[in-house]
């Protein structure tokens, strides 16, 4: 038997579509933290410093945005990373959601 390389069969179960994601041009996702009446203001500042490593002034400004404007965007990036941060924020009891700029 000669050395004939047989072609590898690839089973395609789903139609292949090239999404923007695969081309690396997906619109980024934003992590939004919403104002809530239960979490204490300095608690929110602490959580921003702890999770994102923000300096005190930046963490405090974002907390005030949340408090006064009702929401603040605390992270912008790819979906996986954004979800990871949302999970961490939820772990501290903050009200965080994901949003995509369209």
């Amino acid at each position, binding site marked *: 038997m000669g050395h004939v390389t047989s072609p590898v069969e690839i089973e395609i179960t789903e139609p292949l579509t090239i999404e923007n994601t695969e081309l690396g041009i997906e619109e980024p996702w934003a992590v939004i933290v919403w104002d*809530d009446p*239960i979490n204490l203001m300095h608690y929110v500042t602490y959580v921003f410093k702890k999770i994102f490593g923000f300096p005190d002034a930046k963490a405090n400004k974002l907390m005030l945005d949340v408090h006064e404007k009702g929401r603040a965007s605390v992270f912008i990036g790819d979906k996986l990373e954004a979800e990871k941060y949302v999970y961490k924020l939820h772990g501290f009891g903050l009200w965080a*959601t994901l949003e995509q700029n369209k």
Partner: protein
Amino acid sequence: MSEEIFHISLNKRNEIELEIPSEDRQSLGTLIEQLTEFLDPELNESKRLFPTAYPNDPERDAGYQALAQSEMIDQKTESIRLFQKTLMNTILTIEEAETWMRVLNDIRLVIGTRLDISQESKSNKKDFELEFLYENLSYLTSAFVEVLDRSLPNS
């Protein structure tokens, strides 16, 4: 619980020193035991413990929750266990103190939801006993935030 008798401080060895009377610690122990009953995303009082990630996209949110909820329950169960284990300790590590703070805040989230606390931190439901408890827990949580904040490198 009364606020005058708590004292929480950061010592030179970067540990948290806790002065809380033992009867108050026992009350906390009872509350924490009750918190385990709220580690159920289906309960109305627990909605703040398991927030939605995609409020306008139920399908995406279901995908997120499928992964996040059980992990969150495990994480909170672990935190509660650590709190119970260290309930009578007079010295906590920074990590243990942060766990205390998170658990205390989780209790506040459940009580606050039950009291229907509104934007001005005023309760919409009259339950003086629960409001008193909520206030004391807020005071204690606040004390933990202050001392833990000082332990952060970016402070």
